[in-house]
């Protein structure tokens, strides 16, 4: 008994000592974490900035990656970074409330919290004096980075939205399996009638698949927020650009809740018709996303009207099973030829999310110079392509990735990114998007049209050839067919949750999400009655007031963006 007692006392004592040790050693740990500073060769004082970002970055390697080392060497700046995990708003509120500001903060949509706390600097003068690259890149779009009409300060260097970008990939519109258009003899697919016809004829010849399961004409994913993917088809098929839940008149800049346009009623009537003749999957409004994906993966769905990021997993399963003729091509389907598919009507640079410099920053000038280096052509190429000779080579003026490096990037992406650092600094730099060339005539990003072809399957190539197109993009109206919108894209206007248009919007959403499935799944003769009831309920609940408030937001943005 006695010896047992001693043992217990001894173990308690040792535990106490361990805690004491751990407790003591840690204050030093904080200090030591910051001193992996480079020996700066060019006389710049090395400095460590603390950085917080609302986005996660799992492969972050404390700038000990190859690209990071070059950045340290060129700027003398090391970042001691922290990335949000879980709900970023909580951590950001803590930062704003406690006054423990990191030197650099990427607050994304919550920048207002920092502004209210007086936590961040107005960058207008800093950019003017110390950031020639940022200034050059933004040009006259710099007004778009202003905070608001009442407070025209620049609180964030816009590092999320690409300053200029040419979208190179069609990844939405309506989709049809390659076997469906092949069997129909590759007719033009331009209107919902064309789309319906090929599905109809294929389905009547092949009602079941090789295992005897029913083929499905068209299926939708309306699980929870995926409902937007269904309702967005309303404006997509009637020539409206993506402006969130609104249709904005391009001349008068009046906002309309887009479902209230008579044109869109006709689209939903067509969906109702598809359901009535048995071409629409009856589970469209009840299935869960994983059920939808499993259906796509089974290859039984002939036609979709869904963005590729949503059905892509299912399509990957088809590719893995070599069922390439059951993968999908993209078509610019609208209600009739008088409407253009607006997939390539780009939102444009929206100012948007970015990096702020805090009021307690050790050296704001050096901080802006650091961001300016990243925004330079050198910085962007460094982040996207890496180091010449190590990751890419330039032959006859053409920059290309070293094949072995590319292979590594494909097969061992996480470890490679950690080691090389490619892409880790993308959201720290003001950057150009895809399809933009640098001063040497090469693309800034590694995402360019020529690369897409490498990924096409034979079935995909066959279909593209039959339509005399190199890429799916070629079937769609191009960016040049559209006038840039004076307000960018309406959905980029971020409004506080208590804004009246947001509160009314939530109400309208509930009504819409109730009535749209009902209208689509009803008997055709009931459609008008249900639609009328839907419109009446919207009006009763104040849709006009909501439109009026939102129109004001649009006008305000136009005013802010056209100010000099």
């Amino acid at each position, binding site marked *: 008994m006695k010896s047992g*007692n001693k043992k217990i006392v001894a173990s*308690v004592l040792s*535990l106490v000592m361990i*805690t004491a040790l*751990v*407790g003591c050693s*840690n*204050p030093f*740990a*904080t200090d030591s*974490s910051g001193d992996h500073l480079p020996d700066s060769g060019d006389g710049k004082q090395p400095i460590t900035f*603390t950085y917080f970002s609302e*986005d*996660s*970055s*799992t*492969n972050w390697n*404390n700038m000990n990656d190859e690209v990071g080392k070059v950045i340290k060497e060129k700027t003398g700046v090391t970042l*001691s*970074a*922290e990335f949000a*995990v*879980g709900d970023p708003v*909580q*951590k950001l*509120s*803590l930062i704003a*409330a*406690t006054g*423990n500001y990191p030197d650099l903060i990427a607050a994304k949509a919550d920048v207002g919290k920092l502004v209210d706390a007086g936590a961040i600097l107005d960058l207008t003068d800093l950019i003017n004096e110390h950031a020639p690259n940022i200034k050059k890149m933004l040009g006259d779009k710099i007004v778009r980075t202003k905070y608001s009409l009442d407070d025209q300060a620049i609180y964030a260097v816009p590092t999320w939205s690409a300053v200029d970008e040419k979208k190179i990939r069609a990844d939405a519109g309506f989709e049809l399996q390659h076997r469906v258009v092949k069997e129909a003899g590759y007719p033009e697919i331009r209107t919902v009638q064309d789309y319906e016809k090929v599905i109809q004829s294929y389905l009547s010849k092949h009602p079941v698949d090789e295992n005897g399961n029913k083929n499905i004409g068209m299926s939708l994913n309306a699980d929870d927020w995926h409902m937007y993917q269904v309702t967005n088809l309303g404006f997509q098929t009637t020539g409206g650009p993506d402006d969130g839940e609104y249709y904005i008149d391009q001349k008068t800049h009046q906002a309309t809740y887009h479902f209230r346009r008579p044109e869109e009623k006709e689209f939903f009537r067509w969906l109702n018709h598809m359901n009535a003749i048995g071409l629409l999957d009856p589970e469209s409004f009840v299935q869960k996303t*994983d*059920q939808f*994906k*499993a259906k796509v*993966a*089974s290859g039984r769905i002939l036609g979709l009207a869904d963005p590729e990021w949503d059905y*892509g*997993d*299912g399509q*990957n*399963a088809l*590719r*893995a099973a070599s069922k390439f003729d059951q993968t999908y091509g993209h078509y610019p389907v609208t209600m009739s030829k008088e409407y253009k598919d607006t997939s390539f009507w780009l939102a444009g640079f929206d100012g948007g999310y970015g990096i702020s410099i805090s009021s307690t920053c050790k050296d704001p000038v050096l901080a802006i110079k650091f961001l300016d280096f990243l925004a330079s052509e050198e910085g962007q190429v460094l982040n*996207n392509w890496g180091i010449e000779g190590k990751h890419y080579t330039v032959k006859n003026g053409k920059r290309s990735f070293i094949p072995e490096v*590319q292979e590594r*990037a*494909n*097969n061992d*992406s*996480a*470890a490679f990114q950690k080691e090389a650092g490619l*892409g880790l600094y*993308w959201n720290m730099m003001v950057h150009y998007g895809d399809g933009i060339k640098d001063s040497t005539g090469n693309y800034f*990003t*590694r*995402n*360019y049209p020529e*690369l897409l072809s*490498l*990924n096409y399957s034979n079935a995909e190539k066959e279909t593209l050839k039959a339509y005399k197109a190199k890429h799916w993009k070629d079937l769609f109206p191009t960016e040049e067919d559209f006038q840039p919108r004076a307000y960018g894209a309406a959905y980029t206007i971020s409004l506080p949750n208590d804004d009246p248009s947001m509160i009314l919007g939530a109400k309208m959403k509930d009504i819409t999400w109730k009535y749209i499935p009902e209208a689509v799944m009803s008997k055709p003769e009931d459609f008008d009655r249900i639609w009328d009831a839907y419109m009446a309920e919207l009006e009763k609940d104040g849709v006009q007031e909501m439109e009026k408030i939102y129109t004001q937001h649009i006008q305000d943005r136009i005013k802010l963006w056209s100010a000099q």
Partner: protein
Amino acid sequence: MGTANSTTSASRSKNKLHTKSIQDRILEVIVYVSMILVTVLTLYPFLNVLAISLNDSVDTVRGGITIWPREFTLKNYDLIFTYKGLITGFQNSVLRTVIGTVLGLLSGSMLAFVLARNDFGGRRWISMFLAITMYVSGGMIPGFILMKDLHLINTFAVYVLPGLVSAFNIFVIRSFIDGLPYALQESAKLDGANDFVIYWRVILPLCKPALATVALFLAVGQWNSWFDTYLFNGSNETLTTLQYELMKILQSTTTSATNSQDASNMAERMAQVSPESVKMAITIIVTIPILIVYPFLQKYFVKGMTLGAVKS
């Protein structure tokens, strides 16, 4: 609940001179069937998660995985274990679980012992004080400021110290001590034991069932928590914990799947593992240690129940 049912039915059959009437048999069948149902209901989701975590993620999209992987692979786990920081995280998680549990038990049981003593005058006041913390919390931001002023930010101690005194656990132990005959303490005193000896050699050994329960609460809480790492030690790599690292991995697979930045990503995504599969693999990784610990603590639970039964 289940055990209670079966014991009552067992004791009832004993009362009837060891013969089972038809009624008893029917009851037995009902009990067994419902117990099997409960077992299946609780076991199936776990096996399903295990199967998905061991199944090829592209294949998983096709659906229909039940309790057996269709295309066996360890790729999902492979991806998780390529992240560094897991080892440091694991060490810290084990450390905080062991230290946090042991210290939590010691401090909790000491306080409970004191609160269970009739001759301690302030016991009502202190109990009330503790009870308040069960219903009202200071909130996140005041909590953070408190930790900051105590200089606990960026220390290991922040994992252990704030959780040392938890009102709920103390009440569990105290009510257990209340159930013990006070005569035990009096006789020990007559034998010359001081208060600490009474606590250490009389009360603690008798409290094992309550301590085991509280130890499980503490250990699971310590093992599962990641939010305090994020709040207090997020920027310090040496103080990371396993759950925090796993949370980061989960999040990055989700985001990388939704916004693929460069073209090579398209090919990558094909080969890559889907967030669903990673989520399942992570779930398995975090549950296994608890599954291992549980059987060792379980015997105390059973003991606790029988002990109580005899006394009453």
